[in-house]
């Protein structure tokens, strides 16, 4: 990789100042080091270690919402009995991410900000749209892992499992941008990737995710993913559902999917449809139909449609329990 300077930031302001458009933040480093070693992104002049930033490594319960610092590790989430009780779907999502070793160091911020896993993007010798090339190799090539929905010519899907469950939980990210704290819904955090081939999220260079806030509005939640293997494998499709259930009826239901779109895939009409319903197979199936309407399968990824359909139904039915 390209040579770089290294600095440890002790405050968020100094972290932003050090990165200043020509550096990169280093937390868990899982995604960043892979990108740098294969020269997939322009090498930063400086890596700014943010692991010592105070206060960002805590899971903090609150009366109306919980706060997860950006430096909270996936392992911390996985191993927190409180998280498991309050947001079972978040616990499930964290448990499915990568391997134990990676979960021990991977952070909330890094998981949300991680780059595309498209094998053309990740290949050192192909220059695809995401690398400012003029061609998406996947569209007519090996697209088994790619999107069913997209708003641009790139079909690489969002792979952050946390983004999917956070979307279902209607969580908000607090982002430090140009010296000011900005709040972004999960939809906002990714929307740029919907339209822009080179983007994998809406963060600008130098933006720093500080926290994620999860409202205590949905006591039931579930996360499911389907992969080729039983562990340490990416989700082919992932699905999260969350709601409050009162008298057997869904309140504020939200469903989101990963692996099928550059953004966490959600359909407001389906959420609206589910509101006030009693869950049964037919209702869950109808919601799945609505969520997947308009999917455009390519040569090798059509299997994601029935797979997503099954995961939506199962995740929703899990909310009953």
């Amino acid at each position, binding site marked *: 990789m390209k040579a770089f300077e290294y600095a440890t930031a002790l405050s968020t302001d100094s972290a932003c100042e050090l990165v200043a458009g020509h550096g990169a933040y280093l937390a868990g480093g899982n995604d960043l080091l892979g990108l740098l070693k294969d020269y997939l992104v322009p090498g930063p002049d400086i890596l700014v270690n943010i692991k010592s930033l105070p206060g960002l490594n805590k899971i903090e319960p609150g009366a109306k919402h919980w706060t997860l610092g950006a430096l909270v590790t996936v392992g911390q989430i996985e191993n927190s009995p409180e998280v498991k009780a309050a947001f079972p779907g978040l616990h499930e999502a964290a448990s499915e991410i990568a391997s134990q070793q990676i979960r021990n160091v991977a952070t909330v911020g890094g998981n949300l900000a991680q780059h595309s896993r498209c094998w053309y993007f990740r290949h050192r010798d*192909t220059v695809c749209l995401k690398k400012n090339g003029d061609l998406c190799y996947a569209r007519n090539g090996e697209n088994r892992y790619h999107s069913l929905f997209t708003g641009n010519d790139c079909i690489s899907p969002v792979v952050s499992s946390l983004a999917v469950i956070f979307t279902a939980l209607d969580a908000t990210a607090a982002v430090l941008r140009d010296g000011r704290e900005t709040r972004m819904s999960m939809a906002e955090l990714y929307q740029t990737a919907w339209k822009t081939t080179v983007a994998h999220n809406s963060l600008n260079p130098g933006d720093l995710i500080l926290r994620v806030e999860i409202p205590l509005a949905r006591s039931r939640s579930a996360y499911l993913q389907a992969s080729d293997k039983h562990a340490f494998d990416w989700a082919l499709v992932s699905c999260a559902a969350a709601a409050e259930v009162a008298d057997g009826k869904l309140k504020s239901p939200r469903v989101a999917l990963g692996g099928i779109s550059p953004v966490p895939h959600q359909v407001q009409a389906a959420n609206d449809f589910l509101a006030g319903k009693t869950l049964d197979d037919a209702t869950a199936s109808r919601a799945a139909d609505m969520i997947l309407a308009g999917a455009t399968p390519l040569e090798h990824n059509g299997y994601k449609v029935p797979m997503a359909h099954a995961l939506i139904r199962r995740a929703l039915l899990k909310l009953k329990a």
Partner: protein
Amino acid sequence: MSSWPAETKYISKNTTRIDAPAKLTGQAHYASDIQADGWLYGMILRSKWPAAKILSVNLDKARQVPGIKAAITVKDFPQTIRFYGEEIAAVAGTSKQACLDALRAIEVQAEPRNDFVVNEDDARKENAPQVWDGRPNVSPGRSREQGTVDQAFTECAAVIEGSYSTAVQIHHPMETHGNTVSWTDDGVTAWASTQGISAVRDGMAGALKLDHSQVRVITEFMGGGFGAKQAAGIEGVLAARLSREAKAPVRLMLTRFDNSLAVGNRPSSFQKIKIGALADGTLHAFEMNAYGTPGINGGANIPAPYIYRIPNTRVNQSTVLVNAGPSCAFRAPDHPPASFGMESAMDDLAVKLGIDPLEFRLKNDSNEIRQREYKLGAEKFGWKEKYQKPGSSPGPVKTGIGCAGAAWPAGGASRRTQGEAQINPDGSVEFRLGVQDIGTGTKTVIAVVAAEMLGLKPEQITVKTGDTNYPPGPTSGGSTTCASISPTVYDICANALQQLQTQSGLADARGDNWFAACKKLGVTPLVVHGQWQQGLSSSPAYGVQFAEVDVDTETGLVTVKKVVAVHDCGLIVDKLTTESQINGGVIMGMGYALYEERVMDDLSGVVLNPNFETYKLAGIADVPEIEIVLINMPERGVIGIGEPATVPTAAAIGNAVANAIGARVGSLPITPAKILAALGKVPPVAKS
């Protein structure tokens, strides 16, 4: 004629690997751990084009990178590149980063070519780009015909036709390929991760124009080969040349990326099989048209109709060359794809006949040992209780079972295997054999046989292997090592006892008398030689496996719940290491069945999954309960087990999946995508 003892204390029993403590504590030094004085890192520059003419390579800027001590090209120019990843140049330097920087500083002048082809079907077309000038991509292979095939099909009560295919499997041993090589005025020493120290010595000497005696190869520990590490390799010769230029030892271990491109693979297969049986279930007619690709070189033929004898048989095969890395031996070459195609067709035909697939095999497989194994395995597995009609298991997660048989006819033993033992007056004894332990437990086998024959304990035997300064041993290929060294150690022991008894005057120097006999040697150790003897080993090995799977018909996920592996390997030398081979064979076979596949990109010609992220290997969470049933047959002598253990696994799993869902997934690996497609759940491609 020699024979193995009828009553044994260690042979056929459980002896823990004698090097387990060294491995578990990190004391065992693998090729990739060797740190020779002043060693440098070595790295290879590979082609980023699948086809190109390299006009020139300028190494000047690479040599100027701080820390770089040597830079060389692989060939003279112009060099024709025929696959993505072909070697162009190599560098050696004081750090990994220096080498990486140097690789990027090498200036390659090339004419990339667009006329390449990386997939089999395209390469077979007329007017397909030619991989080699003046040589067609498709070459006919082993073809044969016996009986009256067309007539015979009309006599069958049931006939099925099916397409079965297997993917290219990449060699990914835990330790990548590589060596540390030191070239001094005294000659070359190579610490090699190899299956054949003698072959590496001879190959390196030939490539470097040195006498065999000037090259020494050492392999104390190595992390797996599976067929791909039987020669010096391009990387070995490059390490030597870099060492000569740098005047320092060079450690050139391939990266995982490198290993994905150029160290060899198991060829793909596309088998169209038509098979028919008479009303009583007797196989009567068989026809196969098959092709596969090894890459730019190698063959893709498979044995057909594999382990069955069918009176009317027609087989047409061809090998299709493509612009991709070449094939090489891969754990039971040709057999796992042959087993998958044939055993899948067997089950499909059994379904059509309405016969239990196990009964169908017992009727048509005349081999007595497999007959025994099927019956024994069926009982352990509970076949009768578990068998249900295809697709009849209730609910979205369906259970299914399947079985398949194996044969490993190649191999036997290397008759030229030699070894020696030094017996010291204090009773300590050291065995020295120029064989290498590739992780199978060869050192332990030597200790077990020696302990048995000398009446000592395995831990009293010092075993030295993996050095070409020892008497020559075999390359560890074809599952021949155990059958080569066990008779050799037997012979060394027989000679040792004879001489020791003569010199000491004791009638029996074994066991309790050992130390007294040795003491009579005075001050001079006894060194005795031995060699492979007939009558103590044989071949072939057979084996059958049963698999039980759960298939989630909504997500396509296959979970292998249980495998019962019934195997024979003649006289079992050490039960633990034998079982270890079978566990490994089943796990590797499961990876072949469900996960492993080299994915090439048609447009760019690159290997798309040169890493463990997307070249998927079975992990511990995927591994089922494996129950091993061994049939010990001392009367057959020692037979290898490494290869037969992996042959039938994919076929048994594939049959279990078909039994579960009531539809055939005829293509390996059996991914969730293919399961959902076989169930008719995948929507058509959207029109854009």
